[in-house]
């Protein structure tokens, strides 16, 4: 199972930092993600971007976790030499984060 089975996501830039919003598809999925989708796990997943640190904020009322990845945009905005200067792709990328231990009952019903 991947994160995309449990949640949707969106990302954007804040200067040289990116934020990724992960929105759980159910209260049960949110509960599981709160315990398992840690800032460290997200930092490891995006190690290729060398974040200086990753911070996590929870907004339970809308079943969302907000991750801020610091210094991941190669200077950000106009300075970045990457294709994805503004971190717009990270929200789609994080949906492939493997969640092998998540109970199958949490997966999105198609």
């Amino acid at each position, binding site marked *: 199972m991947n994160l995309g089975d449990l949640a949707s996501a*969106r990302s954007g830039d804040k*200067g040289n930092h990116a934020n990724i919003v992960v*929105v759980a598809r159910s209260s049960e999925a949110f509960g599981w993600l709160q315990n398992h989708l840690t800032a460290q796990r997200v930092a490891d997943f*995006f190690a290729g971007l060398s974040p200086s640190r990753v911070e996590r904020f929870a*907004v339970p*009322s809308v079943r*969302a976790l907000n991750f801020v990845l610091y210094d991941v945009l190669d*200077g950000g905005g106009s*300075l970045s*030499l990457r294709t994805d200067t503004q971190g717009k792709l990270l929200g789609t990328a994080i949906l492939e984060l493997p969640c092998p231990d998540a109970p199958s009952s949490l997966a999105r019903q198609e």
Partner: protein
Amino acid sequence: MNATSTIRIGNGCGFYGDQLDAPRDLVRDGRLDFLTLEYLAELTLSILARQREKDSSQGYARDFLYVLETLVDALQRGEAPRIVTNAGGMNAQACAQAASEILCRNGLSHLRIGIVTGDDIMASIDGWLEAGEALEHLDHGRSLAEVRSQLVSANAYLGASPIVEALREGADIVITGRVADASLTVGPARYAFGWEADDLDRLAQATLAGHLIECGAQVTGGYTTDWEGMSLADVGYPIAELGPEGQVAITKPPGTGGAVTVQTVTEQLLYEVGDPSAYLTPDLALDLSQVKLEQIAPDTVAVSGARAPFVPDRYKVSAAYRAGYQTAGQLVVYGRDCLRKADAVASILLERVRRAGFELDRICVEKLGTGASAPRERSNVSQASELREVVLRIAVAGRDRAALERFSREWAPLVTSGPAGLGGYTTARQPIRPVYAFWPTTVPKALVDPHVSVAVRSADEWRSEGVQ
């Protein structure tokens, strides 16, 4: 105006370059009281500053003039909402004058245009630096003095108050420079309901409404994860319905594409947000951490629970400075060996630049097609035998423009003096562009406010002023 029932504020533009006909469609189908149009991303002002430097009648978002032309019919019928936009960019007065030409040409010379100025703080910066206001970079804390000589533009993010003032003075169209995106919505709401600047619970809700609609279709189904089955070609642009007690619902015109659901609104709620309990705007610090969303009708989501724990005493400032040059090139690399070959082509090209005696300060090599644009765990498909082509993209930066020119011209020769299987070289060579880097900082409101001013005149008056 002291509205006792719901008002509708639509946003027809999320950035300079957004869909040109969205405002027209939103006005036609949205039953709006106010239309907001947002044109200024972080670095847009530096581009507009350079345009003004070259031509003193420029320096604003010219797309707005096209949009205004599309709204002439509705304005003539008296069915258009009042318009609030930051299209003024670096030159709100020139924007007002150009807009007045359009209005006067169409029998609308009586309409009143208000401009808000004073966000441009360039002229004050040296004095402030001397007086010990260091304008420290928000990330690393160093003083703006470090890049003062390369500075191109510096603007404070103003809040809703001058917009309220312009509306009270009868402006049908309010044109501002750098005003915070959400304040474009807070201004009309404060004006319509007579809310004071310290009515924080209601203003928090209005700020949240503004935050949700400021990126246009991003809250109505654009950029959403579950895009399949969603009609996006005719995506509807967002409308915030606000009530006198600060009630907010997000919706879109009936019969349009996209969707407004708890999911689309949640994704936008935290878009470009850091700490959800303290999202800073010039009007207030917005606490989003207890926001509740409820689907109350098809494509209508009620939004509640926004709080404002305090009002910041500083404005955010967006400054831009010259930081050398950039360019990029790309080629299609074809074949079973495309990954190895792409690496080889990159080495050949960069070595030729070095042999010619040039140095590049920064280099970024990406093999697009392998997941390179968002590197993540296990994204490398280097072993993928199915892969038949990748796009080799190399971007470079440096202070030496000649080095970048040389880099750029080395792409075409690869086709005859590189390996077989390279395509697309006719479009490989990109122009060299100057880089304007962003310097985020803050400044005490008390230093900026004395410079902020509002001028409201009829289109006729604006036009004759431009002629003088």
